[in-house]
């Protein structure tokens, strides 16, 4: 083993010290990437994160509010939103760009937040389902999903609604087939598709 010493001349920690060090590093890492899940303590999470090795400072404008964060570059936009900023409306489905549950808007366009690093979006404008409306003042698309019962378990719903709102500004033919094609990136395991299309078409007709 002596021949494998990676750092000759440097004092090596004994086993107990190593474990303690590793343990505290892991704990700090958890705090950094996955801060306390309460919006009111975001500032505390930001401060804790600053202690983490390799964390980089970024500012995201999320739902109209600036968030200055220090974040591990590996953190996806999805994990950043859910775990660091504590906005859990955006859902993690497959985490590999195959389901659409994590759909958010970046600078007004819909994207998959699981296939982006948060650091890529320094200074950019993010909109999540929380920024769309409130239970008291719903976005017309949220209201239409509610009216048409366009969900069952609800897990894909925030992604569906973020996609549907973006679709309103995209080139899209008038018929149901065109809507289905442009909504194909959002998978619903419950099979609420028919009602989702009806909800979107109602909003498009009223717009």
């Amino acid at each position, binding site marked *: 083993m002596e021949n494998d010493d990676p750092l000759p001349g440097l004092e090596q920690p004994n086993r107990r010290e190593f474990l303690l060090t590793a343990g505290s590093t892991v704990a700090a890492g958890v705090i950094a990437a996955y801060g306390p899940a309460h919006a009111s303590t975001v500032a505390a999470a930001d401060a804790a994160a600053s202690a983490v090795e390799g964390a980089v400072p970024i500012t995201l404008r999320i739902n109209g509010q600036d968030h200055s964060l220090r974040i591990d*570059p590996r953190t996806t936009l999805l994990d950043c939103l859910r775990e660091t900023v504590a906005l859990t409306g955006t859902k993690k489905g497959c985490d590999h760009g195959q389901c*659409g549950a994590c759909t958010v808007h970046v600078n007004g366009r819909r994207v998959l937040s699981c*296939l982006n690093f948060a650091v890529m979006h320094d200074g950019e404008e993010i909109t999540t389902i929380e920024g769309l409306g409130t239970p008291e003042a719903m976005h017309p698309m949220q209201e239409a999903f509610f009216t048409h019962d366009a969900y069952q378990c609800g897990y894909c719903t925030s992604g569906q609604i973020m996609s549907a709102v973006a*679709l309103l500004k995209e080139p899209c033919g008038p018929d149901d087939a065109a809507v289905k094609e442009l909504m*194909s990136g959002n998978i619903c395991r419950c099979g609420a598709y028919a009602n989702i299309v009806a909800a979107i078409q109602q909003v498009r007709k009223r717009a």
Partner: protein
Amino acid sequence: MHTFEFIRPADQAAAIASAAQSKTAQQGADVRFLGGGTTLIDLMKLNVETPARVLDINRLPLDKIEATSDGGVKIGAMVRNSDLANHAKVQKDYLVLSQAILQGASAQIRNMATVGGNLLQRTRCVYFRDTSMACNKREPGSGCPAITGHNRTLAILGASQNCIATNPSDMCVALAALEATVHIQGPKGLRTVAFGDFHLLPGDTPHRETVLEPGDLITHITLPPPIAGSRQLYLKLRDRASYEFALASAAVVLTIASGNITRARIALGGIGTKPWRSPEAEAALTGKAATDDTFRQAAEAALRGAKPQSENKFKIELAKRCLTHALRTVTAS
């Protein structure tokens, strides 16, 4: 995911200088350019890609679509797939490209994915994506379990005994038929590569997928001037109606005069180890009457060298019917 250094280069020169320090620009690259992230971040999560340095080039000014002096078009490497597909000139003059892009992936992914990234899209072969399995593309010399394993979606053209992975891109099939040119800025300067020469066949080196060397940055592609009166179509066949990779696809650019085909450009997708231009099909069409017989002969010619794997013999006939149907559709109107 492995740790990496995240850098946003100030300009193109800085990006190239930094990437030039990579040992390879192919599989196993220790420096990677990051565009939309739709392939790279997916593969980093799987530990198939483990770059030590990631260069975010999203803010480099390579996002323009411009007319060229010869009447063609120049498309920046960072143009998003959706912006390219919905561009007025592309829809008017290069319809097959717009159709191919809009039949690929989903609206969200098309908003993210870049032109340069699409040229470098990696195979969906399950063995490549799973680090617990052998794969000659990921780990040269480790073997190809796909040959005796799950190969239903894999290649029937251009495969070798080392690799049968399919190139999954739709956009690249259209670019092959449109005879695009790839413009590359590298440490040694600028060079251009004809689209058909950009991707490599697997042969004995399946880990080498393109001609790119360390530091090479795709800056843009160009398309030649549109062919007046050409008829264009991209037809894609897949396991579900949308948001799925091709089992077989065909990009067709035809010119017809008095019922005869005067010019044909044909490329096939979903069946080859690279975007599959078919000079055999083009030769079988050129100068012939636009009839079902001619179309079938072109399809036979295109698939003559096809070698099926254990699970995908059906793709030979599927690809023939795909091309035949595309030709029939595009000549019907």
